[in-house]
């Protein structure tokens, strides 16, 4: 595949993210406007902060007139998972210059990260990265713009329902992979249980970080294959991600049999 194809493939894989980002972006912009942000500040924050939960935190704290230091500490805690995610993503790029690393780094967020790190090995290229991450970023800004322009047109119950979009995306990424791999299923169930427990006793951002580290740490002893075939399955429905259908497997099997038969004939 050439660079252009990779870029557009990345863009296509970002469509489900865009659906979520636009709806949640609208919800964010509506709240930011209510808090007293100007149109420019609302959209600009989506561009440079680019962190859904971080922006919601900053906006709700600003509403209460919190000090800048309190907001800064909250943001660092909340966004510290990007540290691990960024590490994950860029550990896969062997040859990439520092300028591009510094530029690309800005676009790391949960959802494109999830798609990127579970994609096939041959897609791990700068072009695919740009398609996936830049389009996601643009959709987040689009959401903010729509929210600023058209906040009055959206019924409240719809913006509330849109809040579940990103969670549904996460579920749609984890469940198919866990379904095919019982080790991963056990790790994921453990993570859900642990985080449910921990979030009762500590702040949710600490709970998330602790869960990630404990569950990945323990899980890494039990997953066998380190070139990620063991845990990462092709789970998306297109030619690069989806699993083979029954018909295709059947066809493959038949072809193999035919080959074997021919080989036998030749031997005989």
């Amino acid at each position: 595949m050439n660079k252009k194809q990779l870029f557009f493939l990345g863009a296509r894989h970002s469509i489900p993210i865009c659906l979520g980002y636009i709806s949640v972006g609208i919800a964010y912009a509506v709240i930011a406007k209510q808090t007293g942000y100007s149109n420019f500040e609302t959209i600009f924050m989506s561009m440079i902060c680019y962190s859904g939960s971080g922006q919601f935190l900053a906006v709700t704290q600003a509403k209460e007139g919190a000090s800048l230091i309190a907001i800064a500490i909250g943001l660092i805690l909340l966004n510290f998972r990007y540290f691990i995610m960024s590490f994950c993503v860029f550990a896969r790029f062997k040859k990439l210059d520092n300028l591009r690393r510094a530029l690309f780094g800005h676009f790391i967020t949960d959802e494109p990260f999830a798609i990127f790190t579970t994609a096939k090995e041959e897609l791990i290229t700068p072009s695919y990265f740009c398609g996936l991450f830049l389009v996601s970023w643009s959709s987040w800004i689009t959401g903010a713009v729509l929210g600023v322009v058209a906040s009055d047109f959206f019924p409240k119950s719809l913006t509330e329902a849109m809040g579940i979009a990103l969670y549904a995306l996460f579920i749609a990424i984890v469940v198919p992979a866990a379904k095919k791999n019982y080790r991963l299923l056990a790790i994921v169930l453990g993570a859900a249980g642990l985080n449910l427990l921990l979030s009762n006793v500590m702040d949710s951002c600490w709970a998330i970080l602790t869960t990630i580290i404990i569950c990945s740490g323990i899980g890494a002893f039990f997953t066998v294959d380190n070139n990620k075939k063991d845990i990462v399955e092709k789970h998306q429905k297109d030619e690069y991600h989806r699993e083979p259908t029954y018909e295709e497997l059947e066809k493959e099997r038949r072809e193999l049999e035919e080959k074997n038969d021919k080989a036998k004939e030749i031997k005989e």
Partner: protein
Amino acid sequence: MDNHYFIYIVLLSFAVTYPVRAIPAVFISKLNLSPYWKRFLDLVPYTALTALVFPGVFYCVENNQFAAYIGTAVAIIASIARASLSVTVLVAVAATYVAIVAI
């Protein structure tokens, strides 16, 4: 609260978020990792996403946990039934919307 309060927050949010993402990108990710740490990093997407979903998803609809439960259940069922990512997102939002309106 002066007039620049909000723009300070916006700039601050960049100043504390960007380094968190850029430092591992530029410096740390070039280290060579042992197989154990590679497996660890391969698991991070799944543990991170699960931790982000549970229990956050239950509180994502204001004052209406029931609607959130419905949406979560629909998303899980859709993804077990191999719906694509976009379809899962759409049906989950639709189900949550119906649940909010109906109750």
